[in-house]
């Protein structure tokens, strides 16, 4: 009985760990400037906790194998040294690991969320709503028009509630359903929500951030590879949550300039 269970536990442990080690399912290749450090942190954590996981499960299985079904065995054995040395050892081991991970990890975190955006960033206004994302570029005048919730009119394509009748800066704003960005240029997003909470998640960009109604949240990153990627919502926002997405198109600067021109003509 005990031996059977020990074997079962060992098999489960080895299969689980192998799939992790072989990267059968893994993060998609990173396309961001900051992602390298996240991937590094992930690898470190995976190694450390992977060893702990396998070790703990196998020791558990080993004890179950060894000490099970001993009807006529001699008197029980105490754990060598009692609890104290083990507790001290575990505290130091885990403590050191925590300290290392925190020191390195908080730097990575600070690099993404606490660093100021590059002054030459391309500024894009992002609105999340049930159940789509809309992106606004400032247009030729380089200024965003003001937004007025009471003027939002989805039927007419006025997703941001612009007031072009009275606000001249709003007239050339470019609104798109895809996030189109030039490669290797810092991007600064101003994120706000029209209705309820949403989130911005592009796995390849290694970035995720909630939209909070009533707040404008800045987020900045730089994409390093051109291509078309999927942006999805990760904060439960209602019935269409599963279908709330947009595409991120990373273009060369020339392509991006052309795209802007084409869009401006349509507005």
């Amino acid at each position: 009985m005990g031996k059977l269970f020990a074997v079962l536990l060992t098999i489960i442990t080895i299969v689980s760990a192998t799939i992790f080690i072989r990267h059968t399912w893994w993060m998609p290749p990173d396309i961001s400037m900051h992602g390298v450090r996240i991937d590094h942190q992930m690898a470190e954590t995976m190694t450390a906790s992977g060893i702990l996981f396998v070790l703990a499960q196998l020791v558990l299985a080993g004890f179950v194998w060894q000490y099970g079904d001993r009807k006529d065995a001699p008197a029980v054995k105490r754990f060598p040294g009692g609890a104290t040395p083990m507790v001290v050892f575990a505290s130091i081991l885990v403590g050191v690991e925590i300290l290392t991970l925190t020191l390195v990890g908080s730097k990575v975190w600070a690099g993404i969320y606490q660093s100021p955006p590059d002054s030459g960033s391309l500024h894009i206004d992002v609105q999340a709503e049930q159940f789509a994302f809309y992106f606004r570029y400032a247009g030729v005048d380089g200024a965003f028009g003001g937004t007025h919730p009471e003027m939002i009119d989805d039927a007419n394509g006025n997703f941001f509630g612009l007031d072009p009748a009275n606000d001249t800066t709003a007239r050339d704003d470019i609104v798109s359903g895809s996030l189109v960005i030039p490669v290797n240029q810092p991007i600064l997003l101003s994120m706000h929500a029209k209705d309820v909470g949403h989130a911005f998640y592009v796995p390849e960009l290694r970035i995720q951030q909630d939209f909070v109604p009533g707040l404008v949240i800045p987020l900045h990153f730089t994409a390093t590879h051109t291509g078309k990627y999927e942006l999805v919502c990760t904060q439960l926002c209602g019935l269409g949550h599963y279908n709330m997405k947009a595409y991120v198109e990373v273009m060369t600067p020339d392509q991006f300039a052309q795209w802007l021109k084409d869009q401006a003509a349509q507005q």
Partner: protein
Amino acid sequence: MPESPHRPATYARETAEKITEIKHLPPQGFWRKYVFSLDHKVIGKQYLGLALVAVCTGMFLSWLMRLHLANPDLAIPGLGKLWPNGAPGGVMTPEFYLSLMTMHGTIMVFFVLTTAPFAGFGNFALPIQIGAEDMAFPRFNMMSFWVTFLAFLVLVAAFFVPAGPPISGWTAYAPLSAVGKDAGPGQGTGQLLWAISIAIFCVGQLLGALNFIATTLDLRTKGMTLARMPYSTWAWFITAVIGLVAFSVLLPACILLILDHVAGTSFFIPAGLVISDTLQPHTGGSPLLWQHLFWFFGHPEVYIAILPGFGIVSQILPAFARKPLLGPRVMIGCMIAIGFLSYMVWGHHMFLSGMNPFSATLFSVPTLIITIPATIITLLWIGTLYGGKLRFTTSMLFCIGFVSVFVSGGISGFFLAQPSIDVYLHGTYFVVGHFHFVMGVAAMFGIFAGTYYWFPKMFGRMMNETLGKWHFALTFIGVYCIFMPMHYLGLHGDVRRYSAFTDEYMKGDMPLHRFITIAALFTGAVQLLFLYNLVRSRFRGAPASENPWQATTLEWTTSSPPPFDNFGGHHPVVTHGPNEYGEQGPDGSDHIMQTAPAGR
């Protein structure tokens, strides 16, 4: 560590006087005996019964969810008749999936993982384990159960309102949960019923926690010092303290949510929201305020679900390893430390919520620090097995299984505790896998272990061990097949709470989703073995002796099931700790009962 008999029992109190004060007579008549009973044992069983109904409901909902995830276009015959709006022609709508998810989460977290390990087993066993006749406030105790039952009815009523149950998840983030029907079907009456149900539930659990605390502090029998208290009693006591704080905060949060819903206030709803083309008439509220209040409750809630499991496992492992628990004081210290730390970490649910990024680091550190006591506890269990004479009863198997899944779930917490990795994993299936292992499966294993362990004491009959072992083995394989793959999905960026996967990069993971669905259906079906075993053993099981497991604690010194006043008119006097296994007992056995004559 056995208690030294020479040590003055400073905490021991003369309890006989008090017991006469609260003494009540055995109940007469059906209603007093089984329904509105004041007896803690009946109330404990009532809680467990409620949890059983709730867990069956919750599992049925998860089956529907998994079926939908495996094939969103699947038409399930008959479902369209049951829910014409939610599943027209048997095909589930996205909002129906979300309402299943919301109800599954709410039912499981509140009505299973809070009621069964804490209120259920705690009510049944705590007073007996400390040698009391009953809880300190039997009337409050009865109210606690019936209020909780009412909360359950109110929640389930949401299935029967026209627009269906709420769709905003068990966390009910504002403003989605606060603005009413404009936010989607079920967000009107359904969401309101949810908030009322949870508020009522808080009242029930506060009454329960108050009872647990007062009982543990004041009703311990002679010689039952704090140091001699069984570890399960310790765990319930600590859980009661955590629960008292947590539910005291959730209740006001729910009151404010209800007011936003029905009275037009703006606690959680900011100005200028346009939902369903309607400008919402609210100003200035803060969605983050709800998140802070909710998670201040929500994280400790995880420990409310799991700490009783810690206690149960710490109590049962030594009994079936036939040797004392390693480092009992360290164990208790770690449980207290976890309870304390659980109030400093709620922000790790909100790393990406838009709160100040600096506070992410602040919340990350205590979260990681919690791994130290958690690791120590795990090592103490594993160390307890070393050199023992393991008896693989079903209860013992579930305890070892508990350790295994707790390790698995705990280690994935290591990733999520770091903001820099949470940036990638937040909102993915990795989180789902993590909390189901650590909070769902581990806590359930604790409940199973407790059931197989205390069933003889509750009903005077043994459960069937063969069925039990099959139940354990298949469940153990099943849960790993369900929840380990969720970690892989999360690593690949698959988003949780999606009713279907329409994104290209997630479509490729459908085979894995189908695998999980098959595993979930299988594991669910295995639980029918348990149900059958429960029902059969209740009526046909072999009669149980007073102490079938050769355990040391007080509940095993009285008959199975115990008489109305637990000890048949006398009060046990405690002379030993709960941990004296593997020692020559006075009667030649390998353990010393807590009530054994003092001088060895």
